[in-house]
């Protein structure tokens, strides 16, 4: 156990947070994660993992593809922002781990667009660390990322290229304990690449510590298939928090989620349809209500996921 905390502490201290590049924050993608307010770093067991904590893909047991679309801040005339996400996980074998691909995009027509392409790999590392998996399951992974921004400059700024791309990477680690405790850590944009046009504009390193808990039946209140997560995001010498809970009912078919962060409140649900050969189709929806933005009907996110053997 001490080794796990040592590794996590080292990784947190290793990096210094700066101003995060707003467009590459992960507050827009993964409908299940958004239903939990974006608190997902210690949950990560599906195709949303590549963006939240790459280590999580090592725990995926089925191949999975998820596709998400959204509309942000509906009800505001003149605001047309969409966030889209495509994630895919391919578990190879327990001893070989899993690989993933993910694409996320945030944009406003005729203004700007930000894309991230991720190629990930993760595996369980109990064998490497020598930690007995009877108490804790350890996994770690890394993501190779290509970030691209495309800006629709007007005539006065036409001397600037309209797009720019850089390569960087994430690392992630996940510890799931036998008693239900889950700890996740993800350090993103490790190389703080410069994506600036006029001046150096580094995509800042972003460190997220996730503390989670999973229970088949939450003691005392008997909530079935319960998951909770608290994410602490270290940015600019500040700490931001995200919190979320999830429970599956109706034979673990219907997932209900609640969550939030400083700026917004989230709810969501997802339903799983099982087909032949244990293939599963999942429909997820999440709604986010911003606290500060006025007269918005909120943001809507919907995803279709397919898991198969």
């Amino acid at each position, binding site marked *: 156990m001490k080794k796990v905390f040592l590794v996590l502490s080292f990784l947190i201290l290793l990096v210094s947070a700066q*101003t*995060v*590049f*707003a*467009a590459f*924050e992960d*507050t*827009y993608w993964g409908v299940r994660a958004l239903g939990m307010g974006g608190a997902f770093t210690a949950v990560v067991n599906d195709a949303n993992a590549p963006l939240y904590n790459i280590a999580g893909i090592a725990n995926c047991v089925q191949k999975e593809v998820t596709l998400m679309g959204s509309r*942000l*801040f509906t009800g*505001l*005339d*003149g*605001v*047309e*922002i969409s966030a889209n996400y495509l994630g895919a996980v391919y578990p190879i074998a327990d001893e070989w781990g899993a690989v993933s691909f993910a694409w996320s995009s*945030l*944009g*406003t027509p005729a*203004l*700007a667009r*930000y894309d991230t392409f991720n190629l990930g790999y993760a595996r369980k590392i109990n064998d490497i660390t020598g930690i007995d998996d009877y108490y804790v399951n350890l996994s770690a992974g890394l993501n190779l990322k290509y970030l691209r*921004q495309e*800006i*629709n*400059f*007007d005539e*006065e*700024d036409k001397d*600037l290229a309209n797009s720019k791309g850089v390569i960087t990477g994430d690392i992630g680690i996940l510890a799931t304990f036998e008693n239900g405790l889950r700890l996740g850590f993800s350090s993103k944009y490790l190389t703080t690449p410069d*994506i*600036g*046009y*006029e*001046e150096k*504009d580094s995509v*800042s390193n972003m460190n997220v510590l996730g503390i989670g808990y999973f229970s088949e039946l939450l003691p005392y209140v008997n909530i079935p298939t319960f998951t909770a997560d608290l994410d602490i995001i270290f940015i600019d010498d500040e700490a931001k928090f995200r919190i979320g809970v999830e429970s599956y009912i109706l034979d673990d078919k219907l997932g209900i989620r609640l969550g939030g962060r*400083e*700026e*917004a409140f989230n709810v969501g649900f997802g339903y799983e349809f099982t087909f032949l050969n244990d293939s599963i189709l999942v429909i997820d929806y999440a709604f*986010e209500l*911003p*606290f*500060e*933005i*006025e*007269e918005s009907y909120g943001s809507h996110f919907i995803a279709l996921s397919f898991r198969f053997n």
Partner: protein
Amino acid sequence: MKKRIAGLLSLIVVFIVSVYLYAEPLKVLCAYASFGGSVIVPKITHTAIETVSSIDRILNAKISVDFGDYSDSTATARINYSVDGGSVEQEPPGEGVTIKNNEEFFIQLPDLLESSTDIDYQIVIDFRDEQGTIIKTVTFPSGTESQHAKLTDTVTKDVTASAGSVIEFGSGNQQYDSTKLEIPAGALSNDAQIIIKQLPIEDYISSTEQMAALYQVYSIPDNIEIQSAIKATFYYGLNPTSNNFVLKYKKQDSDDWNTNIPISKTDLQNKTVIANISALGYYGIFEKVKEEDTSYRPKKRVVVKGRDVFRFNGLQQGDSVKIYTTGGKKVREINSGDADGFKWDGKKDNGDYAASGIYVYQIKVKGKLISGTIAFVK
């Protein structure tokens, strides 16, 4: 013998000339024969335009033509017209517009000048054979007559109180309905002349409503009372772009448009609003418009740090601009500016520069919220 041959040749020549000269009548005769004794000649259906609004100054004729026995021919339509006794013009130019049998079509004359007072017009339909030769021409009115229309802003009608009446002010644009009053029997307290007068629209200061048309309804003598509701149809013209209208009333001597009359029907097809009115006075049709907010929005939506700033123009003390990240977090609130308006230079409330990315702005002006997106780039 020679005389006989000469006579025969003469007859042949006469016959050929006659055939050439009377080909058309012969054709009709043949048609007459083949249709068992009745010739169906082309017929123009058009309601004569007698008045054209001197405010709108548009003559748009609604026409349809029954081709009769010329259904196999090609037909074109045009209007020959003369304004204030001037030269005869043609619309559309050339051969005219190709028309179809019994199909309704419109010919609109170019907008008439403000000084115009009278217009004479004639609808001309030409039927052509396969070679393009005109084989038949029909007109409305027939022959060399022309239809006279007067440009006016007024229609007057004597109404007997016990009988009621319908008063119609034709705008001259037959594509849409006319302004009219359907006065039921007993609606007027006495016999009177009822007048509908169209007026130029007023400069009406409102951020949400814009006057589309204005009518005055009055009587001679002027002491007539309305004892039961009159169904009024008001044509609101071509300018409005919204689907949402308000009908307002004001008295003869009032300046305030503060009485709203319930609209029973807005007929977008005919560009009219219909309401029951119970008073003589002024009736204004107002288009509900979205406040023109583009003047407040920053024209430059992408700003590179140090090169420029976002400018929110036309704002005054008491207005505000808030800037949010796409995550919904407020980064800056601006409550004042200079002569150029309110500006955002990309800095957060704490003085540090915000990160590059898309931001949502919300302008609060005159109690209204205007939202949009901008991109700040370093």
